[in-house]
């Protein structure tokens, strides 16, 4: 990074991080015009094939009906907006959507809170404890989700789980044999949220911490000289400076938590009663792959995609407005 700044600002005036186009653009020769496009063929082609084409097809499918006849090879029928009206007029869809948004908001907010808190905490630590916390977080981050879930299922196992043992031994006898996943919708989502937060806090913490360590300490010292207290410094100096990273991570958290599938699906495998615990991801699966109603499921998925875009639009715009892109 240092060498970057040294070499890109020969006159000493230009903003060093102006981006590659500014410094290399004018020097390109004509012969290289096609090169960037050729280089992009492979990555862009892969993404188009794996995601772009299914996206288009899915949009088309959302206007089609897949019934019994289609299972025997008939081409699907066009039904216009029928699938969408079906989806939107189904009260269960709204229950699932509200549940998903609430789940996502709760998880993302708690994750960001704990994550940024940990990052600020890391700054105040001696080497030993700092490394200990970092290692613990990295381990949680890297754990394969299904392994982590299996561990959480075992921790909350009704008869032999540590959680129930702990709660009953501190006097909460009601938890003897209590099934966290099957007995109660709220505790089901509590366990699901815990696993989601447990896995995603490390990313928030480590990225925020990395951004914090790159901060210019002189600015912080200057603001301290100006008499800014700890909280004011945090609010007016530190947080605005790491804003790009925080916004980016928040956006990713919202996307990930809204479409959460693995955790819910695996925990549902233990809990049974899927209708009480479906979120959008598992609902699409249940309708589409489980029920074979590809049209309705595609309409559902399209609605889900729109919700994700709506929720992240503001963040996207902020990111783009920073002018770094």
């Amino acid at each position: 990074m240092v060498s970057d700044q040294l070499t890109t600002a020969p006159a000493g005036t230009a903003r060093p991080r102006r981006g590659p186009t500014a410094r290399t653009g004018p020097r390109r020769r004509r012969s290289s015009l096609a090169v960037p496009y050729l280089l992009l063929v492979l990555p862009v082609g892969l993404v188009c094939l794996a995601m772009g084409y299914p996206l288009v097809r899915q949009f088309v499918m959302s206007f089609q009906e897949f019934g019994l006849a289609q299972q025997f090879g008939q081409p699907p029928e066009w039904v216009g907006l029928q699938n969408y009206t079906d989806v939107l007029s189904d009260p269960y869809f709204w229950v699932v959507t509200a549940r998903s948004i609430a789940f996502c908001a709760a998880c993302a907010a708690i994750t960001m809170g704990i994550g940024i808190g940990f990052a600020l905490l890391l700054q105040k630590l001696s080497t030993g404890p700092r490394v200990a916390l970092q290692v613990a977080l990295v381990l949680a981050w890297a754990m394969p989700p299904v392994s982590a879930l299996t561990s959480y299922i075992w921790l909350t196992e009704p008869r032999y789980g540590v959680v129930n043992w702990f709660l009953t031994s501190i006097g909460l006898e009601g938890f003897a044999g209590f099934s966290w996943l099957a007995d109660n919708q709220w505790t089901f989502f509590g366990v699901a949220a815990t696993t989601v937060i447990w896995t995603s806090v490390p990313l928030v913490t480590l990225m925020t911490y990395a951004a914090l360590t790159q901060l210019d300490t002189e600015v912080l010292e200057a603001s301290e000289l100006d008499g800014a207290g700890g909280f004011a410094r945090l609010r007016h100096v530190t947080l605005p400076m790491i804003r790009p990273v925080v916004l980016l991570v928040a956006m990713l958290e919202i996307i990930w938590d809204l479409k959460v599938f693995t955790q819910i699906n695996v925990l549902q495998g233990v809990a049974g009663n899927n209708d009480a615990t479906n979120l959008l991801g598992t609902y699409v699966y249940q309708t589409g792959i489980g029920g074979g109603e590809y049209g309705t499921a595609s309409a559902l998925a399209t609605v889900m995609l729109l919700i994700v875009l709506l929720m992240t639009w503001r963040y996207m715009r902020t990111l783009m407005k920073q002018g770094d892109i």
Partner: protein
Amino acid sequence: MAATTAGTTPLFDTKTRSAANRRRPLWNVVAVLFALVWVFPIYWMVNSALMPEDRLRSSPPLLAPIHPTLRAFDQVVHSQQFWTAMGFSLSVTLLSVAVCVVAALFGAVALSRFSFIGRRGVLIAVLVVQMVPAEALFISQYRMLDGWGLLNSVPGLSLLYMGMIVPFTLWMLKGFVDGVPAELEEAAMVDGCSRFTAFTRVTLPLLGPGLVATGVFGFLVAWNEYTLAFIVLASGDRMTLPVWLKTFSSNLQETDWAGVMAGSTLIAVPVLVVFILVQNAMTKGMVAGAVKG
């Protein structure tokens, strides 16, 4: 305070340090407690995997295995299904990672070293594509692979993983390519190298850590991925390790908990080791990508 310290930075420095030091022991204790809480589910997984069968279902639970046994690991390692799933997981992961690293490198170089019409559009697309939830696409991805006869196959699942991994790795790698000054290449070109050799001889070696970090990231995503594997691998005998683990543990009543925990541990350990080795480079790449755009 400001008046006395304004001109003498060293004095000011020691003062802030001592102020921070006063509460440091407290923060250290808090941090260690959080670390223990965070690591507990992993510790418990390993602990349960090592526990003898008769102790596993005892109350109160044993906080550490008193007579540790590898019986559970032994069972898993001798199960044919585990090795089938391992082979499948490895094939899918390695294929995805190999292709993704090459694709991401091409893309990162294009976006970092060239200015061309549509560059901004591609950059925005790289960001936006990551917002498309895979969970909102799997119906048509399933049907697409079904139509091409690629359900239950390594190339089919790998293709879907590539779509997931390429945008992020491209973006990460771009941060690394940006970090290597283009002027180094230009200097080599002045010395008579062609553009291509200038890149392969000067920039590529410097990208080593970035390429490793990118590859590891792809490895983690593909190795850990569950959703698409669960959907696309619908036949009974072809599964990746996460899908195997889930079928292995699905029935709570009859679950062999030591076995399941041993399986979880076996899947997790290689990932944890690799991840600890490279997470620093990865975080740096991601932050660089985030800050530079």
